[in-house]
């Protein structure tokens, strides 16, 4: 790690730690931003680095959300009665119960989607290109439709997650969720960064560039594809669990398995920032979140129209994203040596 990097990282870390006290009004927004960055970064593992464009990571996100909340409730109270009574009125979590439940719930929310990704990975990841994209889209929507028919987790009317217990301070809820999501973000960043510095990343890139050749070179592509997807699923589940507690209410198609919003957002953020780079999804998610909040506030009601237009514009005009654009503009910064002759020849070819 070079000296510049160290300074950058410590600046971000310090900013992250003091942000909720500097901008107390934006705590929830900052927590959502952390979750979005986690989602975009982990989407990028298989979407950007591996070349498997998935619309289905929302499956793990939603699963994590339901699992975390169900465990948190189910550890102390009967789950069926909780959902029937609309939750908070009949049963009250003590602070100790709440935090214990949250901790166990988050572990379950991270582990179970990982196992599921491993189990279905062999079947689903055998599909390539757009078949994979459509298949995962189908998985996400099917999960939403099916969970909307299951009574014990609230079916169509939704599931209220346990409200934050009274610990004496009004600010406690926001700060708790902010630090939870911020540490998840740090965990994700460290994990992804260390993955990207190993041979594993090169294998993923080989799969993206030419899977058949990678296989011919003796790489067990299926194994690495499944591992890549499982890493995504782990962090998506964790992010989902946190988001469930943050939002406080889980609906099958509008919050948990929301392919129309979160499922597209994570793809879009990664593409906006630049697929296949470490910093791309982070920058993309930050810009996207600021834009989105602007749209959501000023164009109330028109946000989906704006979102649709935004998707089309980004996809058509910025398919390489911000990092891709920077790379084209300043290749030297990215450690690429550009031969002047070669560049001229390419321009002439165009």
């Amino acid at each position, binding site marked *: 790690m070079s000296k510049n990097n160290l300074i950058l990282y410590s600046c971000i870390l310090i900013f992250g730690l003091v942000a909720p006290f500097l901008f107390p009004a934006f705590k929830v927004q900052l927590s959502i931003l952390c979750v979005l960055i986690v989602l975009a970064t982990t989407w990028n593992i298989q979407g950007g680095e591996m070349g498997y464009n998935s619309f289905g990571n929302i499956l793990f996100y939603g699963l994590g959300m339901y699992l975390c909340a169900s465990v948190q409730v189910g550890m102390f109270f009967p789950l069926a009665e909780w959902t029937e009574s609309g939750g908070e009125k009949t049963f009250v979590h003590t602070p100790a119960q709440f935090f214990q439940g949250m901790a166990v719930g988050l572990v379950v929310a991270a582990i179970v989607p990982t196992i599921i990704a491993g189990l279905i990975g062999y079947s689903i990841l055998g599909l390539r290109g757009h*078949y994979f994209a*459509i298949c995962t889209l189908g*998985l996400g*929507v099917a999960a*939403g439709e099916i969970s909307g028919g299951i009574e014990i987790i609230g079916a169509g009317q939704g599931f209220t997650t346990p409200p934050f217990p009274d610990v004496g301070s009004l600010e406690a809820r926001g700060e708790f969720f902010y630090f939870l999501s911020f540490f998840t973000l740090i965990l994700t960043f460290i994990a992804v960064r260390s993955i990207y510095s190993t041979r594993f990343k090169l294998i993923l890139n080989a799969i993206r560039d030419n899977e058949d050749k990678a296989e011919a070179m003796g790489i067990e592509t299926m194994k690495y594809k499944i591992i890549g997807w499982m890493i995504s699923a782990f962090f998506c589940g964790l992010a989902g669990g946190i988001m469930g507690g943050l939002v406080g209410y889980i609906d099958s198609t509008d919050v948990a398995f929301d392919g*129309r919003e979160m499922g*597209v957002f994570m793809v879009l953020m990664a593409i906006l920032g630049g697929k296949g780079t470490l910093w791309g999804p982070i920058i993309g998610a930050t810009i996207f979140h600021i834009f989105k909040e602007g749209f959501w506030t000023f164009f109330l009601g028109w946000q989906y*129209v704006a979102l*649709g237009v935004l998707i089309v514009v980004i996809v058509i005009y910025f398919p390489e994203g911000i990092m891709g654009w920077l790379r084209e503009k300043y290749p030297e910064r990215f450690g690429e040596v550009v031969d002047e002759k070669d560049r001229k020849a390419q321009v002439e070819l165009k």
Partner: protein
Amino acid sequence: MDFMVFQYPMITVQACLDGILLGILFALIAYGMALQWGVMNIINIAQGDLVILGGYIAYFMYLYGIHPAWGVIVAPVIMYFLGVLIYKLVINKVVDRDLFISILATFGISILFMQLMNFAFGADVVLANSDYGTTMLFNNNVVLPNSKLFSAFISILFAICLVIYMKKSKLGRAIRATAQNARAAKILGVDTEKVYAATFGINAALCGVAGALISITFTIHPYMGLPYTIRSFMIVIVAGLGNLPGVAMSGMGLGVFEEFADYILGTEFRIGSVFLLLVLILVYRRFKLSRKREYLK
């Protein structure tokens, strides 16, 4: 779970007939999907939203006192021009690109349309009442609304007309030539840009017809588009590109499957079962092909 459907044969007959009549409509939409996929190599996620838009055209004619069946003629005309417009604005920029780009771009169009329809027409489930009455079969045990028979008849009529048009007309030949080899067609003087625009327009027009028929027979709702896209995608991958009898057969098969899923699992799992079936079909085909070390292309 409810297995009453197997204990009373008449319910089985009812479900099969309903499914087949519904499946013919699916096949019409899937035909448009296969056309644009084959010619332009794009997958249009907004297909279902074009269908719903066509349905709203018929519904509005019904609201203004015109018989909604006329929508079958009006909707495709409007939708053709809308399709060409969408092509000029968006699709022509993604035609040569990676398929994923086209999926994502049309996903954006789909979200846009969904929301615009929600604003313009409201979030209610509506249907255009055609007053066609019903036909009773088998001692009044099987009830068939005439509107379903009408819609199946019109769908088949449009499909036949389109097949003949593709075989005989100049534009049809140009479309088929472009599908075979766009570059060669260009060299031989086919204006591929125009062909692409026309293909997308024809696809949108087919969606318009199907939508108008759906608004007469079933119900429409701004957010109902995506299941139609998935159904048509599924039909196309089961039948294969350019296999017309296959599209018709798998469309009807899907219709029957859905009716049975509706009876057995309950209506709330109907859409979910369609999406699960898509996943199962893709996984089945993947395992079948991987024995020969191939994959779906």
